[in-house]
């Protein structure tokens, strides 16, 4: 994200030549939650482009059979780096970035509970990402040739053992994730402490915007999710550096234990990624339907419920290991149970839209796409949660299609939506709606071309992480379609980036409240001053700005 001068009194018109250094100094030393949020977002967008390019390379490789566009070794590191980057250095930071920016504003606070810890968390995650990419130069120790990690984003044992992955490429993976994990725990801790301890007067828990509730759940989930991963990574480090035997199958260690540890992290992690997307939907859908969210208590309960249930389903990633009938049944049922709170959420969003006066701004269009696509992704998820079905399709492109439907169709769509909605607050200028509509439609077409059709080669038996394939398998046409969709998505994303840059300089001035919205962040200037609110606000209902705009009919009478 482009650099923006602040409204802080100190930084008024310095000499233009010193400005760059000064601005840089400002950003490096800042402890302001808004700037840290923006840095998180900017850094995530950078890695989004990087990992997106890796995806394009992989799709070129797979577009036609018997292709040798990249070498098999490169292909392995491509999918490893793509997955790791997208989860740890795009998904987490972008969501925490929005959380950092929005949570204090929405609860009427002036900053996070621990501003310096906040800066520390950001920087350590950022350095983690840099360390990961430094592996391209230094993975066999500084003097050898570089090579990136190539063990897959879940790095199953014993592939990670010293014998099977010599050099340091796997260590780069572990260390980078450890660093980002420290940052994530720090930020999660900060968000929890902020929501609990920094709310403005009157902002009781049952008046908090749903976004804040969801960030609270996400952050609590992070404690019990990221920490097991950290523990497992420490064990892996011990194995690789001092020769212990946690995952060393030669000495009685268990490879399956790693799988358990990884997925105890891995499944809740996907919910950590999707809950903030829900959070955006909870704010955006009501505003553009011109109605209050339907069933606020049910939404909160469903979010907390999802948080708890998601802790008990991890082994649905391990059906093909052969867990036995007992665990299979348990994890199948537990996975299906998640559909209930998820269903409640979808019904409530529909009920919010139902009968509303819908404004189809670009943000709302992306949100609508999200609703529809999340539903489908959930359905393929339920199909995969059935053990016998999974035996057939586990590790196939069907799984890849399922989770990209969630990650792109739901999460990325909602992130785009959030950009169109909050960009005016962050920059003071509106994004172009005309370009935004192009962005939406091209991306929608690209998305469906890629990921709808990706289910088919999966059903036809195409395994994931395959380097190339024979022409007579019948996968060719499908892969061609899938790859061509990727081009659409790339073009749309470029359009989006262009839109952001153009609008940052030339977009129409937004004013404090361009959407006629109801939560506190719209009650202050755009972009907000360093202190957020000149006077700490006081609220009496879930929609404080509605109360101000309609003093004759405030929400507080109904809650």
């Amino acid at each position, binding site marked *: 994200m482009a650099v923006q001068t602040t409204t802080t009194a100190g930084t008024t018109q310095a000499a233009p030549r010193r400005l760059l250094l000064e601005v840089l100094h400002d950003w490096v030393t800042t402890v302001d939650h808004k700037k840290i949020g923006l840095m998180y977002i900017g850094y995530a967008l950078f890695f989004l482009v990087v990992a997106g390019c890796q995806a394009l390379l992989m799709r070129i490789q797979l577009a036609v059979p018997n292709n040798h566009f990249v070498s098999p070794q490169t292909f392995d590191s491509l999918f490893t780096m793509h997955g790791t980057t997208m989860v740890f250095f795009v998904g987490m930071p972008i969501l925490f970035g929005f959380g950092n920016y929005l949570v204090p504003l929405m609860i009427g606070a002036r900053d996070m509970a621990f501003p310096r810890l906040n800066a520390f968390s950001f920087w350590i995650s950022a350095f983690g990402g840099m360390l990961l990419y430094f592996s391209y130069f230094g993975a066999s120790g500084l003097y050898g040739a570089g090579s990136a990690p190539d063990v897959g984003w879940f790095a199953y044992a014993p592939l990670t053992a010293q014998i099977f992955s010599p050099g340091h490429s796997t260590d780069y993976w572990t260390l980078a994730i450890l660093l980002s994990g420290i940052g994530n725990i720090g930020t*999660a801790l900060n968000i929890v402490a902020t929501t609990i301890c920094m709310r403005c007067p009157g902002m009781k828990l049952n008046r908090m915007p749903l976004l804040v509730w969801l960030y609270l759940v996400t952050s609590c989930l992070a404690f019990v999710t990221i920490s097991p991963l950290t523990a497992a990574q420490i*064990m892996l480090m011990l194995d690789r550096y001092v020769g212990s035997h946690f995952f060393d199958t030669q000495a009685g260690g268990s490879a399956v234990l790693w799988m358990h540890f990884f997925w105890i992290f891995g499944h809740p992690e996907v919910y950590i990624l999707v809950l903030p997307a829900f959070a955006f939907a909870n704010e955006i859908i009501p505003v553009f339907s011109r109605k209050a969210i339907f069933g606020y208590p049910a939404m909160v309960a469903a979010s907390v419920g999802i948080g708890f249930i998601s802790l008990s389903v991890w082994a649905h990633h391990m059906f093909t290991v052969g867990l036995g009938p007992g665990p299979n049944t348990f994890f199948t049922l537990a996975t299906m149970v998640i559909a209930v709170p998820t269903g409640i959420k979808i019904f409530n969003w529909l009920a919010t839209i139902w009968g509303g006066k819908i404004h189809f701004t670009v943000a709302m269009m992306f949100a609508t796409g999200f609703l529809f696509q999340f539903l489908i992704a959930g359905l393929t998820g339920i199909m995969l949660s059935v053990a016998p079905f999974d035996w057939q399709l586990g590790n196939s492109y069907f799984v890849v299609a399922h989770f990209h439907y969630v990650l792109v169709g739901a999460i990325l769509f909602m992130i785009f939506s959030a950009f169109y909605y909050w960009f005016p607050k962050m920059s003071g200028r509106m994004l172009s709606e005309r370009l935004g509509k192009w962005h939406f439609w091209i991306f929608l077409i690209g998305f469906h071309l890629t990921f709808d059709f990706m289910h088919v080669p999966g059903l036809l038996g195409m395994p994931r992480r395959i380097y190339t394939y024979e022409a007579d398998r019948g996968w060719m046409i499908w892969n061609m379609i899938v790859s061509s969709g990727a081009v659409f998505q790339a073009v749309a994303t470029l359009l989006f980036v262009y839109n952001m840059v153009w609008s940052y300089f030339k977009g129409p001035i937004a004013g404090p409240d361009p959407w006629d919205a109801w939560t506190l962040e719209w009650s202050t200037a755009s972009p907000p*001053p360093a202190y957020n609110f000149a006077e700490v606000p006081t609220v009496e209902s879930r929609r404080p700005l509605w109360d101000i705009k309609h003093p004759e009919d405030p929400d507080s009478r109904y809650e």
Partner: protein
Amino acid sequence: MSQTAVIPQTANEAWILPSRGVVGMACLIVAESAIFTIFVVAYLYYLGRDQRGPTPRQVLDLPLFTSICLLSSSLTVHLAVAALHRGRRHACSLWLAATVLLGSIFLGGTAHEWYTLIYRDGLTIQTNLFGTTFYSLVGLHATHVLVGLAMLSLALVFSLNGSMSAKHTGRLEVLSLYWHFVDAVWVVVFTVVYVLGR
């Protein structure tokens, strides 16, 4: 003046929220507990799966004395906080010193235990699964004790040179929460490793 969403509150109730230090520490404790849980699970999972010795039964002794020292340091740190709260700075220094001493005895005990295990019994982290899981679990806990001791010593130094006063009670209390947590973890580790595991 930027007008913010101010609605005159009807009842002028006091608006009191929990202390952020305590909440932050509670979060940290939850996260740390999850890490320990994974290590404990690994310990239990590999217990008795070794093909070759030494086994826990052969080499482990109950570290009763040092455990008692560590657990009683929970009491002394609590007394230190209470003393500081009441403004009795000398008593606070005394209790902090006692805490540091007790914690150091525990660490010394662990060091001695490891020394005998390595040089008498030939058990290292590379020897077998027991060595792997034992050293990592107990070592992880010892690391936490070490960090806690470093911070307690710092507090002791400040208390001795008089720069700690009653208004720092909140911060010392957060530190004491951490120390209680370290002790609680030891109860679990002790039960798993020395009682159930032998």
